[in-house]
């Protein structure tokens, strides 16, 4: 196999990795906010449900969650496995898992906003919804960018776990080519791709952080 066709295979895989990456962010970032609200609920039953959810998501391997998401419907409900469900299962498992981590990051951000901000908004007559979206949330975003960046970078690398469901993302491709042609090169190339991807992510997040630097 020549290098050109090897790289084109890897790039195809990279596209799938990128797809997993963006779809996971798209679902996990907002879902995390809902879970954070649940976790902070004044109703202790609701709060405990979300506490247990977060505990399970953080306490078990993501690879295991991937397998449960894919095979669970068959073993639990006898729903026949469809190959087309493979990719969806990856997105569901990644989103549910990453949302749990994001929820805890948001929670720390929200709880770190001084009570005075709520009081000031309250005496000015802001409704709770206005207070959250106009006053609290913008400040939370600024505070959570560094820890969220950590999660996003981990996500880039974790997309390789989709290989456990044989989804044709970059790592799966690299492994296939490597074993078919007994060469290390696809692994080296994949490593470089992941690194460059993360370099761009870190660069973008740093730009975002700078843009919010106009206040303390």
């Amino acid at each position: 196999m020549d290098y050109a066709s090897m790289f084109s295979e890897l790039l195809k895989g990279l596209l799938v990795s990128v797809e997993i990456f963006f779809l996971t962010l798209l679902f996990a970032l907002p879902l995390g906010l809902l879970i954070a609200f649940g976790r902070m609920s004044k109703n202790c039953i609701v709060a405990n449900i979300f506490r247990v959810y977060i505990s399970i998501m953080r306490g078990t391997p993501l690879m295991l969650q991937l397998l449960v998401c894919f095979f669970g419907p068959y073993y639990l409900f006898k729903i026949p496995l469809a190959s087309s469900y493979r990719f969806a299962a990856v997105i569901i498992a990644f989103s549910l898992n990453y949302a749990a981590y994001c929820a805890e990051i948001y929670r720390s951000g929200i709880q770190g906003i001084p009570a005075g901000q709520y009081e000031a908004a309250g005496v000015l007559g802001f409704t709770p919804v206005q207070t959250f979206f106009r006053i609290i949330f913008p400040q939370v975003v600024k505070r959570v960018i560094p820890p969220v960046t950590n999660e996003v970078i981990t996500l880039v690398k974790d997309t390789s776990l989709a290989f456990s469901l044989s989804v044709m993302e970059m790592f799966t491709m690299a492994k296939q080519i490597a074993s078919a042609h007994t060469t290390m090169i696809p692994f080296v190339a994949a490593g470089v791709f992941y690194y460059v991807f993360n370099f761009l992510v870190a660069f973008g997040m740093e730009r975002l952080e700078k843009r919010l630097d106009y206040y303390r």
Partner: protein
Amino acid sequence: MSKELLKICNFSKTFGDLAVLKDISFSVKEGEVVSIIGPSGSGKTTLLRCAALLESVEKGDLSYGDLQVCVQGVYAGKNVLKDAKNRFGFVFQNFHLFPHYNVMENVTKAPLLVQKRDKKEVEEMARQLLKKMGLSGKENSYPCELSGGQQQRVAIARALAMKPGILFFDEPTSALDPELTQEILKVIRDLAEEKMTMVIVTHEINFARNVSDRIIFMADGYIVEEGEASSLVDHPQNERTKEFLAFISQKG
């Protein structure tokens, strides 16, 4: 006779076992400036916070003019509370400006979003308020770029922008050094001259004596003494008041 803007009857409140307000009653008339003084832990800040609906009382009545906000410890519905919040403004000890908004936005957001007033009118008014506060040219600055005294003046402008009937001050100068304190006291003095109705919790006894019509002295959750400002400071009747004023003047 001028009308009563705020009336508090038999306020009682406890934090756990600690009774912080014990049967407090007082009222404020239009144009009046009332100062509340007293040692730390006497309940004066809690009283102001209860009046501003930042905390709730267990017993007592609260009304703003014709608006009954709380009757015997039972609060009225959401809409009444929302109406009530339009009748007073609150200035905090630590300013609590919104750090992600610039000065102009801090002043104009609530009138625009809560009172749904016209943008042009609100911005024009905000500019004038800021000018009055000596903050012209600071419209686009962020709170972190201002001194404590400037921040507190923005906070006062923000409260005034809502056109409140009464302005509450909770130890407005306690977070400031002496020079900046004078800056804020001057602003409050100017407001008093314009007959702005105000209730001020403060440790600045001389300022309270000069600017207020009436002073309330609180200790241990009670109103111990209440009277015309200069006579209360110069000729206190109650032993507890005498002790407190003597202690303050010693310290000063």
